[in-house]
């Protein structure tokens, strides 16, 4: 859905607010939380290609996130210059997504769901048990930060701006894809695979492509995660995380770029804001997801776009 901006002042205001946040709060914890939220947004944006547009259910996104993070951590801890890590992460993730994608693109919904869950589980087991390389359940610490020719962001605030820029880049690529033949092919594949095929779309190739792009988004986000948070463990990339990512997409609005971002940020910040609920948070969260699915399956984006269509006077 085209991101219609109804007024420039509003847009500028939002940008200003985003940029001003580190000035408003010096609390490193909050800024780190925001950083994680932004990283999640990039991952969910990637998931949107696969699930939101191409309609392929995918519970393996957290595994790609983890593969990117671990590749980067292992590479930079073993002395490779940071600049190589995004490329290495992308390569690993593309290989993994092909391994998973090629045999499974023809599977139907339930089978695809289970296969992607299985894939995620296998990756997690490998990470947990390959201790000498991955640090097992304790994870990896003291990961070198971003450094290009010796220069890199210092402190949470600088990382924040860098990540905002990364997100902006991710959004711009996603928007471009959406308004290109590839993006339309993805959505067509989901809406009616048969009609898409008859219109000349190679749906298998399109689905695979969406899968790969989504994986690359997650892998690169993983690279940034490892390099800015500087500590990773298998828990951050588990099957539970995969489910969480999917719910972020649904709550935010499947198929919507703005929805992906808002869902990710909302569901990253919410558990912190509701920490006082303790274990009950997850119970309410589960019920909340069901409520959203039942009552507003288009997520936040559908609620927002209702008012937008009305305002634009489209009949």
């Amino acid at each position: 859905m085209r991101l219609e901006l109804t007024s420039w002042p509003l847009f500028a205001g939002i940008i200003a607010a985003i940029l001003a946040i580190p000035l408003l709060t010096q609390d490193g914890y909050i800024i780190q939380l925001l950083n994680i939220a932004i990283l999640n947004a990039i991952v969910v944006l990637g998931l949107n290609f696969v699930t939101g547009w191409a309609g392929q259910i995918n519970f393996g996104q957290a595994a790609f996130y983890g593969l990117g993070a671990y590749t980067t951590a292992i590479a930079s801890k073993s002395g490779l210059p940071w600049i190589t890590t995004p490329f290495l992460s992308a390569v690993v993730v593309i290989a993994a997504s092909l391994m998973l994608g090629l045999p499974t693109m023809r599977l139907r919904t339930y089978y695809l769901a289970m296969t992607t869950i299985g894939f995620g589980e296998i990756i997690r087991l490998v990470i947990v048990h390959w201790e000498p390389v991955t640090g097992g359940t304790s994870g990896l610490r003291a990961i070198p930060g971003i450094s290009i020719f010796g220069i890199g962001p210092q402190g949470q605030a600088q990382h924040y701006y860098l990540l905002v820029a990364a997100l902006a880049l991710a959004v711009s690529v996603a928007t471009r894809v959406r308004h290109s033949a590839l993006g339309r092919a993805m959505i067509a594949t989901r809406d009616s695979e048969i009609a898409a095929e008859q219109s000349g779309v190679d749906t298998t190739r399109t689905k695979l492509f969406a899968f790969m792009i989504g994986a690359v988004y997650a892998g690169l986000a993983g690279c940034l995660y490892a390099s800015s948070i500087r500590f990773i463990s298998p828990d951050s990339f588990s099957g539970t995380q995969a489910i969480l990512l999917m719910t972020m997409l649904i709550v935010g609005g499947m198929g919507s770029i703005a929805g992906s971002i808002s869902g990710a940020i909302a569901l990253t910040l919410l558990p912190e804001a509701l920490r006082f609920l303790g274990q009950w948070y997850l119970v309410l969260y589960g019920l909340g997801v069901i409520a959203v699915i039942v009552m507003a399956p288009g997520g936040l984006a559908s609620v927002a776009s209702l008012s937008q269509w009305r305002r634009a006077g489209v009949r």
Partner: protein
Amino acid sequence: MGQLVVNGLALGSIYALVALGLLLIFNTVQIVNFAQGQLLMLGAFIGISCAVTHELPMAAAWAITMVAMALVGIVFMVLVYFPLRGRPAFLVILTTIAMGIVLENLALIIWGPLPVSLPSPVQGPPLRFAGVVVSMHQLFIFATLAVILFLQFLFLTKTRFGILMQATAQDLHTARLVGIPVNRTIAVAFALGAVLSGIAGLLVAPIFLAEPTMGGSLGLKGFVVSVIGGFGNLPGAVIGGLFLGLVETFGARYISSNFRDAYAFIVMITVLIAWPRGLFGEKSSEKV
């Protein structure tokens, strides 16, 4: 080696039970319940509450658990099936997963995270023959599976209601049109499906300790079994379950026990690549 076979079959029987519960629901309403594992966990804990916390006799504990699980099944149906009728499969999957999360965390709140043990309903010295040890509990598992299969066969083919359920499973709309009490059969499917998983939980807890997070992996193995056997195919599920139990036991012993859970997925992925419709083929068809 014979010991591994016995252990594998016992484990496989439990997987088969989970799959049977899953398939009962799937055959009736075409929903794959991703929270089936959590239902198993619930059964185990209800049993523990009765038998351990309140020190009721095992028979009573089992009876209460089965009734409770039937009720849980119906609540499940109300929360999940009715609101989501006609929605795409993808959303149904997410909803059942969310229910699983709700159940798991409720369990954590009620019973805490620590593993708890449940005694077996049968006590006694294990059988020994041909160098193999078969515990009383393992025998009980085999017996339970056999009894359930027999009862299920009787119910579905010989009783009137069972036949109605089969009709509903084959074509829900037509069944409704000819006056079959479709909602009642669906309720029974959910109730029985939950009970079957609850029984599986009561059988698992004496072997592996019960803890609220146990549902995830057991549920997934139930799916894997359903996939291996071909969705909708009950005998296939049993064979698939036993097969998976054997693969896992042998794999853990001869390859690596760390990747125990992974064997299930590897088998499933292999089967799906070679037979996209499952080993025994599924019943549903695609329309153009």
